[in-house]
């Protein structure tokens, strides 16, 4: 992949950069429009976040960058930011008249590639193209990494994947052109250097994601490859590349979660007495989880079929080394993410993780990894806010969610994963506190858990109680990220002692993950229990794809995570499809 042409996808780049501006202030909207036009950019203005999301969804790959205000009446700017990042993976610039460090930090954590203070100067807008360019470079790099991963993977896994792997790089270029989304504009941009061109963005709707997860499950995580998934999915306009990048995201997400969990435990000083370090760190990779895994995996088959964790169990143990690797990578990621672990932070990672997780959930047997990740999630989220010391709590939550999931069976948890893995998670359109609670609820689990981890879990579990995950809501797919924040508070009130701070997203995600896993599995104590015991299985649900556990080759993983997390956007993930 040569990046030479990459430097200017268009002859007159950055002229013609397609910018979407979202701001409820009509005065600023007009000023920005004028300023951007003066920069020779193509401007679309929008005063409602929802409308903006619709525009973005309608015209996938119709915009290069989004500039949004932080405070908007219909939707929090940060939520919009997450949605865009998850669903469309576009660079987003936040703006506000408020330049408080905490706000700026929050923006960065949520994935903003820049944060501008009003009044905005023209010169600041002139340079926004750098974010688009940067992302493209990252994507290209990811692609490269992916290729190398693929080859390593191929060597390890042999034939099945080789097909996918070998061809990926080659086909990728061509698939870009074939892609239905690739419109002329897209092609224009990519004509010079296919590998470096930005791939058309595919919006992973709930349905699409469900198909994806199903396919992954059917194939079996350790055998999964974009080509196989694509064939199974039977979506004519979808390209192998789309699938590959989605799979990668999914895996990365899982690994990130796991890492974060690890990170959280260590950095946040959470007392993970039993859990965190060992569970998370080594979680999944080689723990007793394996045994659990089998059990739990089975249960994961959701009734609604969205997340089907097919026979993951058996597979879970396989490829352990990979798992471990992934775990470490995840940990790495977690660390990176931990930085300022805050809700947004977590969301980000969760987001990523979720994406990743979804894919694997279905087929991979490497749930072990998930377990780790999931708990991490909790702890991760918790830590920032609440100083959750108990790891258990996070676990508990996870469990709860898992439990909840199955309980709810149809709960949307599962849906969430399916469609928009990442997007859904972050967007958790309507994850209300209630929902979260439901997920976490897993009361019965707690008791079991408790045994393992202590009573703290109990409280949490109960607190969570009812997380009525609505089928549609969980799906973060895109539609409405908002609830995430509310969920958190909801959780808090629930009495989540430890988890109170869990950001909505986190909870949502957890639910998703848990849900998917839990959903299939009978919420029982066993499952729960196993789960607690470090059987990341559940958690890995999402992570599976991330390959934390088994599939990731340490080398592979190492590369992916850094990319993923550092930029907190999926472009990186996109490229580094880890097909374990």
């Amino acid at each position, binding site marked *: 992949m040569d990046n030479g042409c990459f430097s200017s996808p268009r002859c007159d780049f950055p002229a013609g950069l397609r910018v979407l501006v979202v701001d409820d*202030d*009509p*005065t600023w909207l*007009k*000023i920005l429009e*004028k300023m951007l036009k*003066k920069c020779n950019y193509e401007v679309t203005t929008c005063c409602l976040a929802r409308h903006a999301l619709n525009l973005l969804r309608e015209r996938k790959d119709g915009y290069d960058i989004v500039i949004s205000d932080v*405070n908007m009446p219909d939707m929090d700017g940060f939520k919009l930011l997450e949605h865009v990042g998850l669903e469309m993976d576009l660079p987003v610039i936040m703006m506000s*008249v408020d330049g408080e460090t905490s706000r700026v930090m929050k923006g960065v954590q949520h994935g903003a590639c820049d944060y501008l203070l009003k*009044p905005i100067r023209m010169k600041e807008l002139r340079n926004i193209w750098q974010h688009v360019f940067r992302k493209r470079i990252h994507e290209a790099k990811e692609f490269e990494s992916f290729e190398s991963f693929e080859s390593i993977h191929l060597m390890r896994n042999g034939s099945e994947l080789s097909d996918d792997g070998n061809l990926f790089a080659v086909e990728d270029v061509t698939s870009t052109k074939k892609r239905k989304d690739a419109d002329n504009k897209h092609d224009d941009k990519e004509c010079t250097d296919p590998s470096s061109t930005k791939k058309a963005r595919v919006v992973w709707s709930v349905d699409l994601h469900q198909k994806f997860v199903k396919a992954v499950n059917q194939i079996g995580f350790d055998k999964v490859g974009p080509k196989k998934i694509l064939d199974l999915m039977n979506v004519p306009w979808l390209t192998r590349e789309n699938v590959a990048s989605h799979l990668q995201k999914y895996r990365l997400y899982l690994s990130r979660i796991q890492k974060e969990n690890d990170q959280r435990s260590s950095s946040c000083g959470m007392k993970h007495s039993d859990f965190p370090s060992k569970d998370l760190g080594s979680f999944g990779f080689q723990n007793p989880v394996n045994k659990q895994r089998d059990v739990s995996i089975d249960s994961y088959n959701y009734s609604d079929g969205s997340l089907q964790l097919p026979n993951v169990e058996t597979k879970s143990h396989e490829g352990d080394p990979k798992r471990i690797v992934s775990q470490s990578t995840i940990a790495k990621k977690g660390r990176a993410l931990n930085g300022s672990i805050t809700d947004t932070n977590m969301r980000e990672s969760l987001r990523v993780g979720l994406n990743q997780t979804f894919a694997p959930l279905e087929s991979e047997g490497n749930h072990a990894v998930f377990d780790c990740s999931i708990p991490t999630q909790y702890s991760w989220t918790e830590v920032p806010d609440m100083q959750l010391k108990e790891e258990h709590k996070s676990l508990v939550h996870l469990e709860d969610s898992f439990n909840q999931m199955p309980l709810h069976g149809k709960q949307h948890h599962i849906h969430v994963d399916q469609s928009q893995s990442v997007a859904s998670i972050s967007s958790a359109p309507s994850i209300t506190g209630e929902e979260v609670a439901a997920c976490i609820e897993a009361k019965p689990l707690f008791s079991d858990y408790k045994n393992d981890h202590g009573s703290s879990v109990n409280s949490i579990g109960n607190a969570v109680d009812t997380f009525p995950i609505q089928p549609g809501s969980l799906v973060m797919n895109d539609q409405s990220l908002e609830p995430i924040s509310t969920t958190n508070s909801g959780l808090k009130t629930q009495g989540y002692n430890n988890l109170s701070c869990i950001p909505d997203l986190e909870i949502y995600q957890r639910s998703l993950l848990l849900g998917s896993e839990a959903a299939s599995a009978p919420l029982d104590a066993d499952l729960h229990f196993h789960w607690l015991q470090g059987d990341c299985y559940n958690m890995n649900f999402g992570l599976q794809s991330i390959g934390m556990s088994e599939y990731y080759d340490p080398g592979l993983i190492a590369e992916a995570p850094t990319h993923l997390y550092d930029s907190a956007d999926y472009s990186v993930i996109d490229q580094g499809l880890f097909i374990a």
Partner: protein
Amino acid sequence: MDRNQSRRQVAAMKQSLFDQGLLDEQFIQLEELQDDANPNFVEEIVTLHYRDSSRLITSIEQALKERNPLDFNKLDTLMHQFKGSSSSIGAKKVKAECNLFREYCRAGSAEGCMRSFQQLKREYAALRKKLEAYFQLARQAGPQETACRSK
């Protein structure tokens, strides 16, 4: 001559607005955006701002009336929006008053909020009047030259 004089008057008026600390750099930015495609850009923006911000002023007044107790969060949010809007035209003094108001909100001082808001309204009205006069004069002096920075 007359024209020149008018233009000079316009320039002087503008300068005084800056000197009095009523306007800041943002206003100049707006002027620089004005071009053949949008020859009255600055005035349009200012008009748009006053229309939008007067609605916010009303909302804040309303919120201040609901006294028992005052919803500081709501007031802070409204003022945040108002501040954003004021920053769009470079209303320097008005913005400073916004900050003061928000501080009172954070401190939970109803008294401070009320006082600060009264002051804010005065500044707001004063600037509005001056800008109206400015644009009127500018229009008389000749549309092209009023808002352009001398090159």
